[in-house]
């Protein structure tokens, strides 16, 4: 007898081809490309004080083509500022998130694997750090250390980026440790630590990725908040600093929308696409969330 041909694995069944995830990733890539390629096509020197005429509106509101997005009260070209600011924001996010993730992976695996007092100490510390309002401590730090570059800011932000990944890795290790195939691997004489990474990492991947994206946008938010309060490195333009300068120069009241709005728009796009990536990853990791919209 002949069985009808069964339709096998469909490419679109691959969970990593999640719409939200893909849209988020593409937007992030576009924004990064804008920042990186922008400096080839545009003079970034215009991002500094006094390089351009003051208070020019964007070109569609009667400005000049030399400064298509207009200029602000200190004679900085808005387009050039954005081009300089975007990569630096991503740099802060990436450094802080990767340092935080590394710490989280190590601490989380230790806590989950060894349990007992190691777990208790790490978990309690993580819980405590999560509770502390980050901004309060960041403000104290920023008030006493002059932050000259974005790297030092990123490292400070990383101090608060580890509890999230630690929790996730810990709970994943705990739940995976109990699964049959891990037990089998231990019984077959594999070394605990190597095993943990080889066998467990593929399972944890979406969670870890979600945690990293969450941390990147968290760090960008932290940096932007400090900058918006006027505590960031002031010489290099950054998205938060532009908002701070617009705010302190009353750009809102003066109707200079082209000054305060572009950095906010860019940040909203960045945060929203990171959010899409995180929710997408969440659906990848947790199949039950998928296909509910049908």
């Amino acid at each position, binding site marked *: *007898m002949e069985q009808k041909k*069964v*339709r096998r694995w469909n490419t679109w*069944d691959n969970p990593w081809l999640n719409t939200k995830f893909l849209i988020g990733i593409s937007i992030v890539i576009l924004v990064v490309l804008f920042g990186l390629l922008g400096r080839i096509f545009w003079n970034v020197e215009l991002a500094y004080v006094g390089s351009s005429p003051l208070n020019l509106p964007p070109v569609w509101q009667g400005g000049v083509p030399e400064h298509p997005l207009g200029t602000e009260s200190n004679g900085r070209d808005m387009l050039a500022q954005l081009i300089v600011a975007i990569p630096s924001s991503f740099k802060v996010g990436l450094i802080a998130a990767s340092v935080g993730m590394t710490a989280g992976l190590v601490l989380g695996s230790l806590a989950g694997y060894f349990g007992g007092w190691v777990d208790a100490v790490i978990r309690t510390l993580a819980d405590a750090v999560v509770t502390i309002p980050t901004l309060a401590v960041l403000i104290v730090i920023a008030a006493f250390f002059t932050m000259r570059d974005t790297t030092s800011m990123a490292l400070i932000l990383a101090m608060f980026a580890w509890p999230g990944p630690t929790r996730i890795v810990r709970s994943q290790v705990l739940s995976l440790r109990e699964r049959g195939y891990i037990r089998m691997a231990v019984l077959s004489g594999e070394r605990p630590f190597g095993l943990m990474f080889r066998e467990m990492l593929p399972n944890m991947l979406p969670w870890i990725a979600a945690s990293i994206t969450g941390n990147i946008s968290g760090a960008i938010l932290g940096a932007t908040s400090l900058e918006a309060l006027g505590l960031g490195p002031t010489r290099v333009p950054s998205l938060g600093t532009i908002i701070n300068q617009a705010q302190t120069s009353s750009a809102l009241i003066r109707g200079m929308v082209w000054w305060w709005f572009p950095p906010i728009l860019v940040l909203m796009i960045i945060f929203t696409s990171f959010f899409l990536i995180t929710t997408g990853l969440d659906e990848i990791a947790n199949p039950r969330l998928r296909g509910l919209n049908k």
Partner: protein
Amino acid sequence: MSTINTENLILDAPTDAKKVLEVENLRVQYDTPRGAVRAADDVSFYLKEKEILGLVGESGCGKTTTAMAILQMVQSPGRIVGGQIRINGRNIVGIPESELRKYRWTELSLIPQGAMNSLNPVIKIKEQMADAIRAHENIKKKDLKPRILKLFNDVGLPERVYNMYPHELSGGMKQRVCIAMSIVLNPSVIIADEPTSALDVVVQRVVAQTILEVKERLGVSMIMIGHDMGLQAQMVDRVAVMYAGRLVEIGPVMKMFKNPTHPYTQLLIEAIPSIKEKKPLKVTEGLTHDLRNTPEGCIYQFRCEHVEDSCCNEPPRMYQVGIDHFVSCRHAAERARSMELLGGYHG
């Protein structure tokens, strides 16, 4: 080929008892991205008054799906795509939710699988019992407690359980709470979904006893799902065997154990271990087919020892071979009939 006209084998069920539940051509399917899975296909049977019907089969054969369909609680992406389910003669398939709610628990109740998770952990037992009553009756507050305590008494639960939370009870006690809950409104039919499978052997025995007692006292009909053939043999009146979404045989339990008709039933009965004799473990060959691609003809053709060409062309129907006894295999039916004709079959 056989010479007996198979049409003659289909008789009207010569049964005098009232049928409280009739399932007719029930079809349930699960829609998956790679095609629909028929979890219950053309299932038909009836349940008589005061009868316990066992529903057995290997995991994934559709027994729980069938039970859930009777309760109209098939979970998405599954849905009932055809057939009728009649309780005391009234069909409940396709009636609106608000209508359906009136049948739930008053006519049809459930003793769930895994009582461990079937009670809401954050609500007291008394509240969960009361919820069921209040959903269907206007009961005075002062009448509530004596009524629940009486039910506890019926199933052998101490009174203190009334004010407790589920996590304070043992597994057996939780299962008793579930039994008490199932009879709170005197339903016509109780569906027990492997009511003892999560318990240890001793508790299993006691809980099974409780279920039987309750059933005797209330004169309720039950469908008991299970895979433990031994337990089934002791508890049920009739047993229904399912395979790959289809009902293959249904009949009085003693008859089925002594003289299994369908090849699959024979396999199941042979698989029951016995202390008296050591028999070689029979390896069941062949795999269940892909449920997305049901073959034409008999569902059991890939595993059947007696498969013939005709089995692969035309699906068998339910052939009656005795009182309340039906089988979904033409050849088995013929064999059973001829045995009966020859007088070799005494039931």
